């Protein structure tokens, strides 16, 4: 095993995902402790230009038509032999729809440890330590980075996208492509989200509802408040899973990143996959009956009350204020 830190560069339809830049920044911090290099790994097709702008000491590139977009089978083949061959100190992935799919199976295939929901890896008196946020952010766990090559799926937060960017040129090595016959998974097409609905990523006033919304009829109270405030209703995953709101209104990991002037979070606990998408908000106000809800750690103002009581009372108070 060497002391290099590898980063899988995740890309969708020709652009590198934000998380990969954050991973590069984390890798840079980690490599300065281990004394190794930061190595970016790109699997793609005619995608060498994705290497431009990455803050890495070197880039490894593998090309095949089957890897134009993410393919579990193809990635598994390439990365299994790459990790066996190179044995870096650690490899970083996003805790994402790409990274989380592939990191666990590599862990099983190579008998290497994988650590999920990882928020940070840092030097700790000569040793290396991981910190992960589990149970929707309600608990943190930490421990020594295992002695073997360790695979980590990273959540955003510790580093900014800009910190993983650099215009310094770096050497790019093209590695041979393993046999890509008999792949069992094929991408047919991407389907765009419906464009008919409002785009919550550009809305200035958002009223977000979460698990605290117990039944669909109560959504009316929230919609009334949104109307009075001149805002738009959006939601965390449980509400969209119930199909009470369309997926175009989803804020979070599979949904949109939002940056409104005000984000009024009603009955939202503040799981990391939601929080990562709302940190760009100018002001967050949270209403939740659970005083320990992680959303209160992010919000500027908090109210420990029932979301519907507050929504109703606030609608009235605003109407009164407007009238008066």
């Amino acid at each position, binding site marked *: 095993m060497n002391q290099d830190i590898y980063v899988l560069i995740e890309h*969708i339809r020709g652009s590198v*995902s934000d998380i990969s830049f954050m991973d590069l920044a984390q890798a840079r911090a980690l490599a300065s402790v281990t004394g190794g290099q930061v190595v970016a790994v790109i699997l793609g097709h005619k995608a060498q230009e994705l290497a431009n702008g990455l803050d890495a000491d070197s880039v490894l590139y593998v090309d095949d038509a089957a890897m134009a*977009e993410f393919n*579990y089978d193809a990635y598994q083949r390439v990365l299994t032999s790459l990790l066996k061959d190179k044995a870096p100190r650690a490899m970083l992935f996003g805790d994402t*729809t790409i990274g989380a*799919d*592939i*990191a*666990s*199976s590599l*862990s*099983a*295939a190579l008998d290497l*440890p*994988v650590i*999920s*929901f990882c928020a940070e890896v840092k030097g700790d008196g000569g040793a290396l*330590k991981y910190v*992960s946020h589990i*149970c929707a952010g*309600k*608990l*943190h*766990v930490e421990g020594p980075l*295992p002695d073997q090559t360790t695979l980590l*799926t990273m959540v955003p937060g510790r580093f900014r996208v800009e910190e993983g960017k650099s215009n310094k040129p770096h050497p790019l090595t093209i590695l041979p492509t393993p046999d890509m016959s008999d792949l*069992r*998974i*094929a*991408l047919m*097409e*991407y*389907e765009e*989200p419906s464009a008919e609905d409002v785009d919550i990523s550009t809305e200035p006033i958002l009223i977000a509802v979460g698990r605290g919304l117990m039944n669909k009829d109560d959504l009316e109270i929230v919609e009334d408040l949104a109307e009075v*405030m001149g805002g738009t209703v959006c939601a965390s*995953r449980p509400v*969209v*899973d*119930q199909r009470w709101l369309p997926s*175009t209104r989803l804020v979070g990991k*599979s949904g949109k990143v939002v940056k409104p*002037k*005000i984000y009024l979070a009603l009955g939202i606990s503040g*799981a990391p996959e939601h929080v990562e998408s709302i940190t760009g908000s100018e*002001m967050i*106000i*949270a209403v939740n009956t659970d005083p*320990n809800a*992680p959303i*209160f*750690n992010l*919000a500027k*103002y908090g*109210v420990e*009350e029932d979301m519907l009581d*507050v929504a109703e*009372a*606030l609608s009235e*108070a605003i109407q009164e*204020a407007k009238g008066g």
Partner: protein
Amino acid sequence: MKIVVPIQLVPDLVEDLEISPDGTSFDYENLVWIINEFDDHAIEQAILIKEKSGAEVTILAPDMEDIDDPLFTAAAKGADKLLKISGDFDAGINNHALSKLFTPALRSLQPDLILTGVSNHDGLDGALGPLMAHHLGLPYIGYVSSVTVDGEKATVHKDYPGGLKARLKVKLPAVLGITSSETPPRYVPVSKVRQSMKTSQIDELEGEMDLSGVATIERMYEPEVTEKAEMLNGDIADISNQLVKILKEQGLI
């Protein structure tokens, strides 16, 4: 068509998350366990496929305390077979151990499709689906929100950020990590679950837990809060007036 749905229990986040006295793990005995929410969606997706095109649905679970209830609930929803695997769960549980615990049963059941939750919120060591997929030599797709079976293939939607979906074809057998079922998990009344307790049977197999191969936890703790929201107090009317004032200051009213 045979579908197996491996499920697991997770700490209920609505309850207090008890930590062991030495601060390195959950206080397993004092946690309230519930079915992993994504597994509930996997069960629903399996039943939806059964209703659409016919299938035999088997629910596979670790034989932990409190597991019978979610198993009988799944039977009440339409699952055909219930199977639990015994092991020593007192020292904890992780996805690597669970994937090895389930693998022999999955090999002998020979399903066409394995549907499981895409992740579990307490899972520090990756996800169950891809671990099982490797042990079984099967393809895996995670973050799946719809499944249509067509002969020896399945067409699925995989969720990407921003509401983008990829339509993928996968050769069966395959393992799919479900994020959400096509329609929300159905509600079953308690009376129907009670009835299934009388009419359904849970088969049992012996297994062994192997907790090795995962990172050690030195410390588990509630996050220290550096900046906490300014809490607004008073009765609801007071609070509303304070909120109006804040919104006015922001120029939003």
